[in-house]
């Protein structure tokens, strides 16, 4: 029998998260700080709007790029937040979560061998999506001493004459790092100079603390070079609804719609109706959730400092990324031992790229009560292993 598999697909490594998930799910009654999704339920008025759309029989396909009203609300939102003017008809597409937008924007822009710069540690799907689209992933290793921001030196060093796209994953999963005005301005200059395109994954844009998120597309000349990706999962606690979007130059969006129309048809209709409500009346919900996350964030940073683990202060997403190098263990050892000894599940930094070695991703999408119990156990674990050294 012939080999049924694609040679390309076989080369792709399964996600490191998956591996760890399998270990954790065998452990009964473990406390997990390992999830990448909000602990809040979708606000009721948003769910209710989804239910209402079902009751009214809105159960058909929508147009490929999404409901007109939703696309208009997305554009209103981007104007309200960033004074960005996008055309809902030609520059906007509604996708199955941010993940589909990442995939189809890469597929729409890449030719065989084009290089894509991926700063790491970062979300697990950029690299395989680039490979599957025929591109060549080029990793930029971000550093703790720069608060895991992308610096212009790091960027310049990675650019070759084959470089076409820079992925900007901020606010960042897993580090919680954000890029501020000055940081982005430097990046924008280089992108213009070197004639690159940007895929800016801003899925955590609503979850920044003490400072507002800035989009790279706000800088002069950048909107023409940027696919801005966002969605409803993190900001409105709507992960299971699978809804995201991309905005960008019409000629790129047009090609993305083509892939989307053949592969997907359209995003789920119920979710689209719920999302309209989220954008129209959801700002107050986001504020409540942001305040709760911020309190947990401060609580955790304080806790790690108290137990003597280095932990830079992240200003975005819902993760802290403490450094465990002082214990002389690898991330994976630490995570596995912590699970065995104290039944707390955290994700080793290496799941998000090799340069995550020595770090752990700790999610604070959990109640304070939950975090308190977990922290007590981690503290006991750290104390014990410090003494063993």
């Amino acid at each position, binding site marked *: 029998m012939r080999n049924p598999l694609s040679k390309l697909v076989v080369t792709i490594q399964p996600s490191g998260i998956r591996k760890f998930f399998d270990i954790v*799910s065998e452990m009964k009654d473990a406390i997990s700080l390992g*999830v990448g*999704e909000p*602990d809040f339920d979708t606000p009721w008025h948003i769910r209710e709007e989804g239910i209402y759309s079902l009751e009214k029989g809105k159960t058909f396909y929508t147009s490929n790029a999404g409901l007109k009203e939703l696309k208009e609300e997305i554009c209103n939102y981007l104007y309200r937040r960033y004074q960005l003017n996008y055309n809902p008809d030609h520059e906007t597409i509604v996708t199955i979560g941010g993940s589909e937008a990442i995939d189809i924007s890469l597929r729409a822009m890449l030719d065989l061998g084009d290089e894509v710069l991926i700063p790491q540690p970062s979300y697990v*799907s950029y690299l395989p999506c680039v490979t599957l689209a025929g591109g060549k992933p080029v990793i930029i290793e971000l550093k703790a001493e720069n608060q895991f921001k992308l610096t212009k030196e790091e960027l310049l060093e990675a650019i070759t004459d084959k470089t076409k796209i820079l992925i900007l994953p901020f606010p960042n999963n897993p580090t919680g790092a954000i890029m501020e005005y000055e940081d982005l301005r430097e990046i924008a200059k280089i992108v213009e100079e070197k004639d690159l395109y940007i895929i800016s994954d801003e899925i955590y844009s609503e979850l920044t603390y003490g400072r507002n998120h800035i989009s790279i597309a706000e800088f002069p000349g950048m909107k023409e070079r940027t696919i801005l990706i966002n969605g409803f999962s993190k900001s409105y606690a709507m992960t299971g609804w699978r809804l995201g979007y991309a905005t960008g130059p019409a000629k790129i969006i047009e090609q993305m719609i083509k892939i989307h129309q053949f592969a997907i048809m359209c995003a789920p209709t119920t979710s689209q109706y719920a999302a309209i409500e989220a954008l129209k009346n959801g700002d107050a919900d986001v504020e409540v959730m942001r305040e709760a996350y911020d309190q947990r964030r401060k609580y955790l940073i304080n806790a790690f400092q108290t137990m003597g683990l280095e932990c830079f202060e992240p200003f975005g997403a819902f993760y802290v990324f403490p450094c465990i190098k002082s214990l002389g263990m690898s991330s994976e050892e630490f995570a596995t031992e912590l699970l065995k000894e104290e039944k707390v599940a955290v*994700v080793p930094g290496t799941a998000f790229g090799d340069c995550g070695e020595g770090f752990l991703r700790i999610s604070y999408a959990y109640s304070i009560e939950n975090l308190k119990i977990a922290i007590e156990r981690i503290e006991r674990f750290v104390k014990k292993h410090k003494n063993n050294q």
Partner: protein
Amino acid sequence: MKEKILTAIDKNSKLSAKDLAAMLGSTEEEVAAVIKQLEEETVICGYPTLINWDKTQSEKVTALIEVKVTPQRGQGFDKIAERIYKFDEVESVYLMSGGFDLTVIIEGKSMREVANFVSSKLAPMEAVLSTATHFVLKKYKEHGLPLVHETKDERMLITP
């Protein structure tokens, strides 16, 4: 700071000053001082516990009574409200707009106890014109917290 502390403990009064300090980026001493001040100003009036008595053996009956009263010269409704809320059986008293004046919420051991209270204490008061008693059949939510709620984390243990 006051607002933030109040919002944080509104749904969970068990948070210690130390935890609150960590959550709000303050010091334990400062948080303790603010809470003490709020207690003195009776902004914080108490720390009751939200109990779902239906899940226990003890019998409890709650009734909501609509009361029409004659306001008294110079004191409006306050005096009569005070005379009513001083009874131990009375859980809450609110002055209302609309078809009646006071909402009185009573907790008793049995329907008879509540009925006795209404007929022998509340209704005969001089200022009380009429009462209408409604018994509560089931409580779903109180103080913003659902009483019949399965708090199970349905998320997978590890997700990207």
